[in-house]
């Protein structure tokens, strides 16, 4: 209850701060001369671009060096459509934003297949290709650019006046920032943040990573388009050097220095660097040295940028005792509330592996593995470290495509499908060394997995935001229900890293269960747990099974395996050496040999070679 009051107060102070800032921004033109109002107009455009870049880089974690080029595409499209084709400004503007978005999709296409590091250079190359085109193309006016773009028209106000233009821009900026923040705090942005924190785990909980990356590019290109259109309307002249790589790096510096993971930080960075540039307007090269150096220092010493400073400051004050620590009471892990019993949704075998072999550059991690798991059972997978257990999970959950062999879920062949597709077909898993999304709260970790909507449904963001909001509310209610079931309510707003290890393990199981999977793969869930926690884990696993979910569990804790599992499969050197009831397996001579002979020696090896 106390926490909620504190939350209310911080919300109120935030609203008050926003209103005060908005009032300042509204009154600002009264204090500015004609030159400075023009500067302010350019600053706002940079802020819009920075919000777009923050969305794709800071929120979605995709490196995009084509943001200025997106603005360039829109500005040039506006210029060409108005001066050469005779369109009115607003029609041209609308078309220009559409063209910029199309470019966003095009540039984002490599993101479907490529790693984020490559993307940096590919986007940079395409941005250079754009400047190369406009410098040469006759229709784009060559190096001279295009002048004489008509001013945008609105009833009652003359937008050739920079003061009026300021207010239009200010409103556009407020709308774009609000929309950005809305995205960040609703399912789309949450999925993006999850992808940024750990794209592998995001895929495993059903996030369509490739499509989402493309959506991030699309989103940033819309911001680029809006900024470009208003640039054309403000300056009424476009030339290649405005959209050069140098300005792209300036924009990048704004986002990094401001704090890429906070959209407000991006805006602060844009304003701060623009002002710095204005102060050093007669020494542009020295300004470049300054902001380049600040970028280097920022990434090394303050990776969260200006936006992270308040938090760091509070932590510092707390350490030297000027500020008392936030919570007096340490929140406690609640009891698990068992699921209602349900028969399994499938009959017969839910999972079948047929002759699965997995090789990595000469190393064979799995050799002709055939395995059947009946619906509704708890299957134990044991074996010495490096025997291929985790590789098996990685194959079943789609992280690896097997070299040969087939994986069937029920009757369907699932071999080589992407992790998010498998997640959508009811495969859920946890990871051996915990892969929670570190920068998301516990509730958000669960929320990412709860959301079943596809990325393609993101069109709703453009059309009907209240629907998105309602959907988000419904998800939150579900998340709170789930957290309550797992006794995690007290930790809902904590970052996973702050929690005790055993609690983090439980969060990961809760996240895996959010999707109501058909089959749950637990990879060493008891590792690092104390005796009480292991007993709770046993109860949780049993309840999950009783609710109709098949459980496959990799575990070294033999006591747990023996008491929990109906059947146990034993791996050694990538092969199955025994399969049967715990009692049968324990008597098998091969197991005794492989297991006792090997595990006694490999006990101390902390990680599995197969990962």
């Amino acid at each position, binding site marked *: 209850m106390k926490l909620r009051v504190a939350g209310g107060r911080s919300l109120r102070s935030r609203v008050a701060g926003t209103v005060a800032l908005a009032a300042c921004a509204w009154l600002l033109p009264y204090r500015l001369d004609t030159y400075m109002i023009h500067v302010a107009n350019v600053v706002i455009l940079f802020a819009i671009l920075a919000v777009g870049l923050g969305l794709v880089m800071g929120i979605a974690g995709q490196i995009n060096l084509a943001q200025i080029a997106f603005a360039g595409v829109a500005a040039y499209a506006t210029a060409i459509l108005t001066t050469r084709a005779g369109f009115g400004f607003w029609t041209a503007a609308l078309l220009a934003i559409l063209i910029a978005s199309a470019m966003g999709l095009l540039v984002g296409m490599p993101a479907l297949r490529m790693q984020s590091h490559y993307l940096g*250079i590919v986007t940079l190359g395409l941005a250079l290709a754009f400047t190369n085109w406009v410098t040469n193309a006759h229709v784009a006016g060559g190096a001279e650019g295009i002048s004489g773009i008509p001013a945008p028209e609105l009833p009652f106000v003359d937008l050739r006046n920079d003061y009026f233009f300021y207010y239009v821009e200010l409103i556009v900026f407020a709308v774009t920032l609000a929309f950005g923040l809305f995205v960040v705090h609703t399912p789309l942005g949450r999925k993006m943040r999850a992808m940024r924190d750990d794209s592998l785990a995001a895929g495993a909980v059903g996030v369509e990573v490739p499509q989402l990356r493309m959506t991030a590019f699309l989103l940033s290109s819309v911001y680029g388009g809006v900024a470009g259109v208003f640039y054309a309307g403000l300056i009424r002249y476009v030339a290649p050097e405005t959209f050069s*790589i140098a300005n792209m790096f300036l924009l990048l510096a704004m986002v*990094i220095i401001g704090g890429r993971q906070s959209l407000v930080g991006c805006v602060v960075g844009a304003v701060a660097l623009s002002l710095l540039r204005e102060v050093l307007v007669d020494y542009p090269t020295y300004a470049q040295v300054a902001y*380049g150096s600040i970028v280097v220092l920022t*990434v090394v010493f303050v990776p969260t940028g200006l936006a992270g400073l308040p938090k760091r400051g509070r932590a510092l004050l707390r350490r030297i005792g000027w500020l008392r620590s936030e919570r007096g009471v340490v929140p406690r892990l609640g009891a698990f509330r068992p699921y209602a019993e349900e028969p399994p949704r499938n009959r017969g075998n839910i999972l079948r592996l047929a002759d699965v072999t997995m090789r990595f550059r000469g190393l064979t991690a799995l050799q002709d593995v055939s395995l059947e798991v009946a619906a509704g059972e708890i299957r134990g997978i044991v074996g010495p470290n490096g025997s291929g257990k985790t590789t098996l999970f990685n194959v079943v959950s789609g992280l690896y495509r097997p070299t040969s062999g087939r994986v069937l879920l029920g009757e369907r062949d699932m071999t080589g499908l992407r992790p998010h597709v498998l997640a959508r077909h009811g495969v859920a898993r946890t990871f051996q060394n915990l892969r929670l999304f570190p920068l998301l709260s516990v509730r958000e970790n669960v929320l990412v997995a709860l959301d079943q909507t596809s990325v393609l449904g993101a069109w709703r963001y453009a059309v009907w935001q209240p629907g998105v909001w309602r959907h988000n509310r419904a998800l939150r209610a579900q998340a709170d229900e789930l957290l309550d079931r797992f006794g995690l309510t007290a930790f809902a707003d904590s970052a996973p890293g702050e929690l005790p290890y055993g609690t983090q393990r439980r969060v990961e199981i809760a996240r895996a269960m959010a999707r109501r999977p058909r089959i749950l793969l637990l990879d060493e869930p008891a590792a690092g747990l104390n005796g009480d926690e292991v007993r709770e884990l046993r109860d949780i696993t049993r309840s999950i099974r009783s609710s109709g979910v098949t459980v496959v569990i990799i575990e070294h804790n033999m006591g747990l395996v023996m008491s929990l599992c109906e059947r146990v499969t034993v791996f050694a050197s990538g092969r199955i050496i025994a399969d049967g009831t715990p009692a049968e397996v324990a008597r098998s001579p091969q197991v005794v040999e492989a297991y006792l002979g090997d595990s006694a020696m490999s006990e101390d090896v902390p990680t599995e070679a197969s990962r």
Partner: protein
Amino acid sequence: MQVFLQTFIGGVSLGAIYALVAMGFSLVFRTMGLVNFSHGNVVMIGAYIASTFYLSAKLPFALAMAVAIVVTGLIGVFIERVLRPLENKDFDLMLIGTIGFGIVLEAVAIIIWGATGTAVPNPVAVAPVQVFGLRVRTYDLVVLAIATAATLLLVFFLQRTKRGAAMQAVAMDQAATAVGIHVGRSNAIAFMLGAALAALAGGLVGPLLYVNPSMGGTLGIKGFAGAILGGFGSIPGAIVGGIAIGVLDAFAAGHFQGYSELVTFVVFTVIIMIRPTGIFGERTVNRA
């Protein structure tokens, strides 16, 4: 046919330089999994230092090049040292850090040498050689010879020396620390060698192109394109990819004039989308 072969040879010579740039990218990437965005700017600095010492200090071309290699090598070590706290923690941040260094290097070049470029005269003032009825510029042959020698030296270092073998091990397994390999030193050496290759490329490219502060962007991207095209991280891939980009560039320049860069980048993007792993397959340091 004559024109075709002439263009081809010009492309191969420029491509050999792209290959040197690409090897620098690949070396750093395979050792530590980082794309070094400042690499192109280091090439530019190398080009400036070599040309300055060659033109102003009137040093022999080879000596000017050696000075450039030493200076950029030190720059490489410096960059690695500053960004070392981020190693194995956040590669995106580290990548942005190298962009920051690139911004600074370009600005420093403008401060020292001015925003306009310098033309470097051909250091090998000999008439073109006739090979099978083709006129080949002697300088092209010099470039090819030096690039080949540098490549052989690099391969020798990576495969025949203990230090080079240790760097391979780091690339293979981050757990190399466990067997006593000093990862920080391997990374520093990778950065230093990468920068040295950059200086070599920059020095050689001076007489072919116009040396100017913004050449780093284009050269860097083309070198990187070569590296990806060949298979990022692979040394043979970097050579083949770099030369392919050079030849593509030469023909694009012949056919599309001003649009040559556009054509090169678009062709590269299309190829890379069809085959993201490049010609020699993938060698990514996967941190799954």
